[in-house]
């Protein structure tokens, strides 16, 4: 029958006063795909970090094949048959693909003090080919590959040595449809070879489709472990949140008509190598969805509209004010807000506190005769952080301590504070749990009602269908289809135009 390969007994983790993981006891069977879900900050990643030696265990123990696991680092964990694909970028830039994959295991190719690089590259290439990734070259420096390819390389790195248990932490958000399929193929293969996969994701339909059992964590504690074929997404959401979710997750109205008034007019916009000749109008009170595969140029388009691209041609016009936007400070001054897909680098300054982040784009309006008063700045930051109900110890908390969802709330709070009229939201719910997601959708509806306009760039098809008045699909840097809001719109309709 089912054999337990790994179990945890009353595992706890404390970070200072935060009790991140509370008495979690779990069993993982050999050859199963085990989903681990929960809101941001529910302890999923921390639990797996302890399993893989990234964090130390505060109390409790992991038992692998009947023996207690004592690992102090990732490399030690690997040697014991445990591996992990981390949520953040886990490859080292400046090294080749081969060097990344065999990091910490170079001794295999060492002859005395000399490394047989050719041999290492050959073996890596064979590995990549066996995963169906022959488009990736083992001897190329990893920086030449996209975010997505680097993620796939990481997966190879975490699985090629046939570990007993592989953790895949929130990886699919970084992957396009095609990349996800490649990942699921790998997971399927691991399962067939009797390995155990711990799969962490916010995408519940994905978890339901690809796992055997699912464990739900809430506030660091295990809520329940269920069989995947006996639950649905709503049930999972209920377990995660601990109460019935508001029915209004996406918009419930299907009236896609919007005002005739154009608030933003984009014409013949191009950024070489990213997209070309893009023209469209954004109307008052409209939620305009822009979708496509992750490399289709839509993310760069959002940046270009905000004035953030260096080599842009064409024009971004505000017809009401009769002026053109050419730089970020101008865009902000005239009411355009922007959230980037790359939240940590472009949306928010991680190493300053919440208050400074919220006030930063509004400093020019907060200055009275060029003088800024700390008290007023803090009052401003506090009121907007409260409005977005950011979970924090206070506005002086540094942003790098916050979870993804809370960071995004801070980003939105700053633009609400600036009282922007046009919101360019790139991947607004990327890597964010259902509860915060629902908050963000509600905010978007509210903004729409107040006559604000939104451009929502998203790789999530359901989100596009659920929230947009109009959807533009991009493919290879050009528009390839337009849809208006309708109950009848399906995922297949959109996908057909994307690929």
């Amino acid at each position, binding site marked *: 029958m089912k054999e337990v390969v790994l179990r945890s007994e009353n595992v706890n983790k404390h970070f200072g006063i935060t009790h991140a993981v509370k008495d979690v006891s779990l069993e993982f069977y050999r050859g199963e795909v085990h989903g681990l879900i929960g809101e941001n900050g529910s302890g999923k990643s921390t639990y797996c970090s302890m399993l893989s030696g990234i964090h130390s265990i505060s109390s409790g123990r992991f038992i692998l094949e009947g023996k207690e696991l004592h690992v102090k680092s990732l490399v030690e964990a690997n040697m014991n048959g445990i591996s992990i694909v981390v949520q953040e970028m886990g490859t080292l830039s400046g090294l080749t693909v081969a060097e990344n994959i065999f990091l910490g295991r170079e001794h295999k190719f060492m002859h005395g003090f000399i490394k047989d690089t050719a041999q290492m590259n050959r073996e890596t290439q064979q590995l990549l080919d066996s995963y169906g990734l022959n488009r990736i070259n083992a001897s190329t420096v990893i920086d030449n590959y996209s975010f997505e390819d680097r993620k796939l390389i990481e997966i190879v790195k975490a699985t090629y040595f046939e570990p007993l248990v592989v953790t895949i932490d929130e990886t699919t958000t970084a992957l396009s449809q095609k990349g996800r399929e490649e990942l699921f193929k790998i997971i399927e293969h691991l399962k067939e070879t009797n390995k155990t996969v711990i799969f962490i994701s916010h995408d519940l339909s994905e978890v339901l489709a690809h796992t055997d059992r699912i464990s739900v964590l809430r506030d660091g504690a295990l809520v329940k472990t269920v069989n995947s074929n006996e639950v649905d997404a709503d049930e999972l959401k209920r377990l995660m949140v601990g109460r019935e979710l508001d029915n209004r997750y996406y918009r419930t109205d299907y009236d896609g008509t919007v005002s005739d008034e154009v608030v933003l007019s984009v014409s013949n916009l191009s950024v070489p190598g990213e997209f070309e000749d893009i023209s469209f109008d954004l109307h008052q009170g409209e939620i305009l969805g822009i979708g496509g595969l992750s490399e289709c140029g839509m993310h760069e388009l959002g940046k270009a509209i905000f004035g953030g691209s260096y080599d842009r041609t064409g024009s971004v016009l505000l017809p009401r004010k009769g002026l053109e936007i050419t730089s970020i400070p101008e865009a902000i001054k005239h009411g355009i807000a922007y959230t980037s897909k790359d939240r940590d*680098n472009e949306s928010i300054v991680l*190493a300053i506190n919440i208050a400074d982040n919220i006030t930063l784009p509004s400093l020019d309006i907060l200055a009275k005769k060029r003088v*800024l008063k700390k008290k007023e700045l803090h009052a401003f930051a506090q009121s907007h952080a409260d409005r977005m109900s950011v979970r924090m110890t206070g506005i002086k908390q540094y942003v790098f301590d916050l979870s993804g969802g809370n960071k995004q709330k801070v980003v939105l709070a700053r633009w609400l504070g600036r009282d922007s009229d046009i919101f360019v939201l790139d991947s607004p719910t990327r890597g964010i749990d259902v509860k915060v997601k629902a908050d963000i959708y509600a905010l978007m509806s509210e903004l729409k009602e107040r006559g604000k306009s939104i451009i929502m760039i998203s790789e999530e098809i359901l989100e596009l269908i659920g929230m947009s008045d109009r959807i533009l699909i991009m493919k290879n840097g050009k528009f390839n289809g337009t849809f208006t809001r309708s109950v009848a719109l399906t995922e297949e309709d959109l996908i057909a135009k994307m690929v």
Partner: protein
Amino acid sequence: MPFIGFVGLVLVFSILTKGRILNPRNISLMLSQVYVLMIASLGVFMIMTVGGLDFSQGSILGLTSIVFAWVSPHGIVLGIVAAMLAGALMGAFNGFFHVKFKIASFIVTICTMYLFRGLCEYLTTHGPISASLKVLSLDETWLKILLTTIVITIGFLVIHFTRLGYDLRAIGAGEIAARFSGSRPELTTFLVYTFAGMITGFASFINVIRVGSITGTAGSQLETQILIALVLGGMPIGGGAKARFSNIIFGSLTYSVLERSLPMVFPVSATQQLVKGIIFLIVVALTIDRKSLRVIK
């Protein structure tokens, strides 16, 4: 922490010198060294807050001192203005190469350190340059304290109550994100280098008051003194949010106390160097804020 370090150091040396460092003559000698250092540190403080470094301030002080000496016979105030302009120009030169050609700031400023120093020595080939005699009559402690206080107060107000201060910290903490928040990192960085040069230009006035005539080596070592002072004052090397204005004040005070006390305790110059190195290491190891290391780029 920097404050505790400062007080601790003063205490230790008071005991070692049996209170001699606290006598009025020594205090006034210590102060005479601190003015130029503190003023010039203000500029470098801003540069380090945006995440840069500057090794050229000593050479800038040398050149601006010469400019001041030249112009001073036509009026002291005119001389100060000329020195500040010259300093601003040299700072702008640094900033231009750093921002426009995207060369790391420490490389640009090491190059200009030699460049400006070369000019300085070239201009003094025929002997030291003397300032107008009127200048020497200004060598009054109250004036120097007053000027230093004014500059430091202006710096404090600018950094705490204007947009510039907030921009500096944000850019130091994350340049790309600051750009997407509406800051102008390139322009701001350029201006900060220009300001730093200008401030050192002002400091050259106080420098000339003290020394009277300028030789080719005037101001040399100031750049390292500034960096050491700021680090002793608790300045995070990578800049960003943890930069505190008090770093300037306690840093330059701590440095001056060290400079003055060591010769009293260790008469041999070689020993002084040894002890200085050890003390810097210990002070930095004790006071450095390791939490902010995670934000160093």
